[in-house]
């Protein structure tokens, strides 16, 4: 018996060990399965130095570059004219002020593979039927954009418009959080490889100062889409008229403080921070700015930037 008892001991020990191993293996298998089961749109995320959360769907190389860009932003101190300050509604173009402006409007950055349709849920309906606007920000135009090389899209404001037009309250799982989309300021920005390739100065690496500053200007453009109310919620682009290069597309602005003007202002001022930049880099800044300026339609007016909110 003792022997048996003795014999049993190792068995029990073995069982205990096996049990521990089994538990470990089960945990391991479940972990692996959960990892395999997770799609590439992982909802985990990490915070950048200035507090913007990068979703797990942002590739690591892009994450490093974005972190660099935002760090560069926080170190800026630019002297600008009063009309530029008025458009952005800030007191100065110091790093902290620009960071504050941006983080009010951009809270999450997601990668090109982030499937907003899968991560978004309808969690309620609005008790009222808001006016349906004619902008195509999320409709065919938005979907068409997504079939192209993504540079940057303000998904949060687009989903807000979608929810508003359909009298629905949406949530989005992003960066390990569930976000209620009750305002255009939800601040979810999708970036793509295009931001780092087609948007770069030719013959230069992605992490040069010039490329970093140019990318920041795109963030400021998209951040303006997180503003506005009523007819002008999300500052949608206007239809370009027949005489325009981009005729027939919603890629012009009738707002004197709209996204393309913000783009232009940032490109001009960020260019001044590009000390020691080459002629090619300067010309690229200016070309992008000229493109942005060319989209401002005659008779443009200042629009109210205050964001609306679903109660």
């Amino acid at each position, binding site marked *: 018996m003792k022997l048996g008892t003795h014999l049993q001991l190792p068995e029990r020990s073995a069982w205990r060990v096996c049990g521990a191993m089994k538990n470990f293996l089960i945990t391991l298998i479940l972990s692996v399965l959960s990892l395999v089961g997770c799609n590439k749109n992982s909802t985990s995320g990490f915070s950048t130095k200035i507090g913007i959360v990068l979703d797990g769907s942002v590739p690591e190389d892009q994450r490093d570059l974005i972190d660099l860009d935002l760090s560069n932003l926080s170190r800026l101190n630019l002297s600008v004219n009063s009309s530029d300050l008025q458009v952005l509604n800030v007191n100065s173009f110091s790093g902290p002020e620009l960071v504050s402006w941006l983080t009010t409007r951009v809270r999450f950055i997601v990668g090109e593979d982030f499937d907003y349709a899968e991560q978004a849920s309808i969690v309620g309906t609005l008790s009222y039927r808001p006016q349906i606007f004619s902008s195509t920000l999320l409709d065919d135009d938005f979907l068409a954009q997504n079939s*192209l090389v993504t540079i940057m899209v303000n998904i949060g404001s687009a989903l807000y418009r979608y929810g508003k037009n359909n009298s629905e309250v949406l949530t989005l799982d992003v960066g390990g959080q569930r976000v209620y989309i009750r305002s255009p300021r939800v601040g979810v920005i999708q970036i793509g490889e295009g931001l780092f390739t087609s948007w770069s100065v030719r013959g230069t690496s992605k992490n040069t100062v010039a490329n970093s500053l140019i990318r920041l200007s795109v963030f400021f453009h998209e951040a303006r889409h997180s503003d506005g109310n009523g007819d002008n919620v999300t500052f949608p682009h206007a239809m370009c008229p027949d005489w325009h*290069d981009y005729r027939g597309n919603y*890629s012009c602005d009738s707002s004197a403080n709209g996204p393309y003007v913000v783009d232009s202002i940032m490109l*001009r001022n960020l260019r001044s921070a590009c000390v020691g930049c080459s002629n*090619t880099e*300067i010309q*690229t800044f200016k070309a992008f700015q*000229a493109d942005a*300026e*060319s989209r401002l339609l005659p008779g443009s007016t200042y629009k109210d930037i205050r964001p609306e909110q679903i109660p």
Partner: protein
Amino acid sequence: MKKKKRQLYFLFWAFTFISFISLLGWYLLDQYKSKPSDQMGFLEESPNPVHVVEQKDAHPEEVRALPDISSEELAFRQRAQRVLEDFPKKSILKERGRDPHKPPRELVDASNELGTIEDLLDKNPELVKEGLRFYRKCALTNELLTSLRALCLHNLKTRATASGFDKRIRWNEFPDHLHRIADKL
């Protein structure tokens, strides 16, 4: 006999007169060609553009032999001509698969070329007139992207002011909307 002598006398003077007129005309034409431009519109194409086209593939020795243009100027003019031909036209924006919300990638390529042109002008101040000619032509070419034309006009203004040629350019030949964009840059 006397009549024949008078005829010879007349022919002699007629020949002398015609020769004088021809020589004078040739001299004045030569003076006009070699005279430095100092009028409004001095950036316009040379009166004989074929001259330039004929020399497009000229041998370096032939280039040096040209009396009214240096080899550097000619090389710059040829480069500028090629750059202008390759610059993106408005028509590219109609192509499918483009995101109209962002500048076309061809604009980035054009910026690269403009950067090289600016480098050349920085290093060779004697090319300034050729540079101004190039920027003027670019800004006046309606088929090009408006953003690119505006950037050319901006560069024209910057270079003309720096070189003191700004008073001798017909600024009103450029459309107002180009001026508006160029002045914002």
